[in-house]
Each structure stands twice: as structure tokens, then as C-alpha cells.
């Protein structure tokens, strides 16, 4: 029964009541019989379906581990550039962290054979009037 607070108008109430009655009649039409169970498409028993649901998680974890392992291996086996054979870097190769003073009063520190760190000495640079440089 439509609630009166929704539609206080009597005509509206009557219309909605007629709709409700029509809806009940329409809903009570004969229904076709139920299909056989299980249906033609796949319907595994609940226990088996549950086990199958668990499997993807295990497989996902294994795939993730394999991916991490591959990435790690790739990082370890990555091709590295040959160490410099001449110049200040070659000198520093024997001592990975070394300080070499260049002729331009720029101190060069070799963090590793491939990574120089340049430090300009301020006092010497001002006296000589050299332009500073950072590389």
C-alpha cells in the first residue's frame, strides 16, 4: 500500500494503488520451470572452486619472486664501462678515493673509477682571477 505521507492526494493514492495491484498481477505470471542443475557451463563444487581460487595467489607470489630474482640478476650482470686507461681517472683507479690537485687549483676527488668530484679552491681561484667552474 502506498504510504500516505508520500502522496497525500487521494487521486494520486488511488493511481498508485492501481499500479501496485497491476504489479502484483504482472509479477505472478507463470514462470518457466527451473533449469537443471548444474547448468551446461562450468559449475565446480564449492570445495574445488575454493581451492582454485587459492591457486592464483600462490602463482602470483611465485611470479613476483621470479621477476624480482630476474631483475636482481640483470642488475648484477649488467655490462659495465671499461675503466679509463689514461689521465687523472686512470691514476685514481688504483686508489678509488684519491685527491689529485690539477694545475687550475681545482681539487679532483675520485669517488670511484668512474665518478669524479670537482672542488674549486676559493682562495687560489680569487688570487689568480680564474673563473669558477663546477662540473
Amino acid at each position, binding site marked *: 500500500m502506498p504510504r500516505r505521507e508520500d502522496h497525500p492526494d487521494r487521486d494520486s493514492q488511488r493511481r498508485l494503488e492501481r499500479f501496485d495491484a497491476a504489479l502484483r498481477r504482472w509479477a505472478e505470471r507463470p514462470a518457466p520451470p527451473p533449469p537443471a542443475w548444474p547448468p551446461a557451463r562450468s559449475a565446480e563444487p564449492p570445495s*574445488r572452486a*575454493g581451492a582454485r581460487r587459492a591457486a592464483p595467489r600462490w602463482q602470483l607470489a611465485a611470479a613476483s619472486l621470479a621477476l624480482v630474482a630476474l631483475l636482481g640478476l640483470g642488475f648484477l650482470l649488467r655490462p659495465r664501462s671499461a675503466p679509463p686507461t689514461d689521465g687523472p681517472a686512470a691514476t685514481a683507479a688504483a686508489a678509488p678515493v684519491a685527491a689529485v690537485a690539477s694545475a687550475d687549483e681545482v681539487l679532483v676527488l675520485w669517488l670511484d673509477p668512474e665518478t669524479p668530484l670537482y672542488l674549486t679552491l676559493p682562495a687560489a681561484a680569487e688570487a689568480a682571477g680564474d673563473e669558477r667552474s663546477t662540473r
Partner: protein
Amino acid sequence: MNGGEEGTVARAAGGDEAAFGALVEAHWGRLLRLARSVVGDAEAADAVQDGLLVAWRGLPALRQPAAFPAWLTRVVTRRALARARRRAPWWRRLRPLDEAEGVAAPEASGGDGEIDVARLLAALAPRQRAVMHLTVVEGMSDGEIGRVLGIAAASVRSHRRRARHRLLALLEGKDPHASS
């Protein structure tokens, strides 16, 4: 729910297909009527079948066999609602009143104008159709309907109120959504 059905539910939860088939037979008519209201005659049987498959797989998780009828209704209703939402094209969602064009209004006075229930339901949002069916046909309370649909009882009342306003406009031949 009687004790006999609880035993059947327990057996079905253990993988007994025949037991679940018996449950399907017992609840099929009720579920089909509900699906007809939500998705229409053409897709009702498919919608119920979808819901039954979901129920079959999820049945071991049902802790209280006595709650099976309400739980099954909830599963099938939600599958039907999802199907109804997927089916509607976006433009129809913007102008659902298009489907109500040409709906015959009852005769002005004393006539028994036939009400085209299917077309009137099609003019409502899927959830409104479900609320109307569960209210009018199943006679469920707002709380029960809310549990089936996963919404609060106040939302159920709101859906029903909007559905009735819409139905009334259609029955009176008015079009509140017509653009000026």
C-alpha cells in the same frame, strides 16, 4: 526456513549438486519474478542463473544455513542490478524518460485502462525497480530490503519515494523531465 531446508543447504555447501538443485527448484519462481522486475522478461532467467552460480561458489562461506533464503535473494538481486546497469547505454541513463514515451495512461474516470507494468518499470532506475518489487510483491520491510540491497532503510524509503513520484507522473501523462 524449515529444518529440512537447513540440512539441504548444509549438504549443498559441502558440494552436493543434487541438494543445490533442490534449493534452486524451491526458490526459482520467487527469484525469477524479482529478476523480471529488475531486468525484464528477456534477461530474467539469465540473471537468476548468474546469481545461482555465484551462490553455488559462495555457499561454503555462509555461516548460518537458516539465512539462506535472504542470502540467496541478496546475491541474485545484486547480480540482476549489475546486469541492468551494464545494459543501459549512457544516453539512456541521462534521459531514462525516453523509455516512458508512449506509456498509456489509464482512462480519466472509471475506466479500467490497462497499465503497462513492464514499460513503467523500465522507466525507473534498476534499484528503484528492485525496491518496488520487494515492497509491493514480496511485502518486505524497509530494513529487510536494505539488507538485500546493502543500503540503509532510509535509502530504501528515498528510492521508493522517487519511484512513486516518477510512476505517478507517468500515470498522469506528465513529463517532469521534459526539456523546455
